[in-house]
């Protein structure tokens, strides 16, 4: 059936394939998730120095929105991002930042039962995720479809968003793109602070003031998390500088300067109205820069 030459090619290929297969068996223990199974032994080929001594586990945009919601943050029209065409964001940095902005808006809408707006932001998130090459996460476990089906059911939607966050984190981990997690969160945090400060301006709710102050505590972690991944994308340096410009304003507020241990205290912090205005102005500037893709 085959000539000698062809048989030689087949034999050589099978030999190579077998060698590759057996080589893989050296590492090839089946996935172990059960506590009783032994762990896999992996020979590492990377430099030991690549493991950072300190890393950061930043919260999700949904948790930030949930904290604000518990403090009385109500829904106000016109506060979410007005940008309807995500195609205007051309760099990966701007796409990631605005994926965070839209994620914060999505969470804000879901927790305030704004179903149609939530659906709109879900689509915008999907569009930016597609653009970043990670749109497939929306199809995992039928997340997009389940979101549509559960419109109007706030609790279910919140769980679906939490699940979406998990598959996104998993996707970024698997693809060694953890830097996107920090960039997205920087965008989400800024948008949440923008919404929180605007709602505070109107109602002057004490609880909301305390939550705005508390949120400032994690800005240092965001900056450090971004610095830790700076080498993966040089453009992150500009974002670090932007976030640092907000922290400089915060560190200079009298409530913080005169009480340096406030961040570690169990007692809720608060700002004076003047301080909120100062901070809000800076957050406004940064948020405008983000949503305009500058």
């Amino acid at each position, binding site marked *: 059936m085959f000539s000698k030459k062809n048989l030689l090619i087949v034999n050589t290929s099978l030999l190579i394939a077998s060698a*590759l297969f057996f080589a893989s068996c050296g590492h090839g223990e089946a996935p172990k998730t059960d506590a009783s199974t032994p762990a896999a032994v992996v*020979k590492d080929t990377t430099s*030991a120095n690549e*493991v950072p001594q300190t*890393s950061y586990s*930043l919260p999700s945009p949904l948790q930030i929105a949930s904290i604000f919601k518990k403090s009385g943050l109500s829904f106000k029209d016109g506060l979410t991002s007005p940008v309807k065409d995500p195609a205007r964001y051309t760099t990966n940095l701007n796409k990631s930042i605005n994926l965070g902005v839209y994620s914060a808006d999505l969470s804000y809408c879901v927790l305030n039962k704004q179903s149609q707006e939530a659906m709109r932001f879900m689509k915008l998130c999907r569009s930016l995720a597609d653009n970043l090459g990670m749109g497939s996460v929306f199809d995992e476990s039928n997340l997009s479809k389940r979101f549509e089906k559960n419109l109007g059911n706030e609790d279910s939607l919140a769980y679906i968003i939490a699940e979406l966050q998990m598959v996104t984190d998993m996707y970024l981990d*698997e693809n060694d793109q953890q830097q996107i997690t920090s960039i997205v969160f920087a965008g989400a945090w800024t948008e949440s602070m923008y919404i929180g400060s605007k709602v505070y301006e109107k109602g002057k709710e004490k609880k909301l003031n305390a939550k705005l102050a508390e949120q400032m505590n994690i800005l240092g972690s965001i900056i450090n998390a971004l610095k830790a991944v700076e080498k993966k994308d040089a453009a992150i340096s500009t974002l670090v500088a932007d976030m640092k410009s907000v922290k400089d304003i915060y560190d200079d507020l009298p409530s913080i300067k005169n009480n340096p241990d406030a961040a570690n205290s169990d007692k809720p912090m608060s700002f004076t109205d003047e301080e909120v205005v100062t901070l809000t102005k800076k957050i406004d500037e940064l948020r405008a820069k983000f949503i305009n893709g500058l």
Partner: protein
Amino acid sequence: MKKIVLLSLIAVTVISAGFTTVQLMDGCDKRALTENCKKKLDDFKYDSQKYSKINYLDHDQKLEIEVPVFIGEKYRMIFNTSYLPKGIVISVYTKSKDSKKREAIYTTKNEAEGTKVYVFDAPHVRNMYVDYDVPTDASNPKLSGCVVFMVGYK
């Protein structure tokens, strides 16, 4: 026609073997680790996760993860160490490793031997720092594995 069949056979065989190799070269199945942690969340909502590669060196190491927390929130932490070839000690502190005044609020030292997945419901604290104490492995300094740490809240 015979040539096409022959070449297709060769291509399929080589690609399949190569694919198997690529899939298994990285011994940590991040997805399986994450799915296992998720099951332990119960009624806590997923917040974040941190995948850490652990390289065993010729000296002890202390790796730290800073976890920002908020007043009034309840947190659950889940650590999956199923893919570690050698045990590490996981501890949770109220301050970073640079502080002399920090307090340990959890350590796996007190857990049953052989446990691979640890669940810790945190008390109300202002800050949390997760430390991985990685022992030395002088016999095989290039030994490595991974651990996934998940945070839930309610």
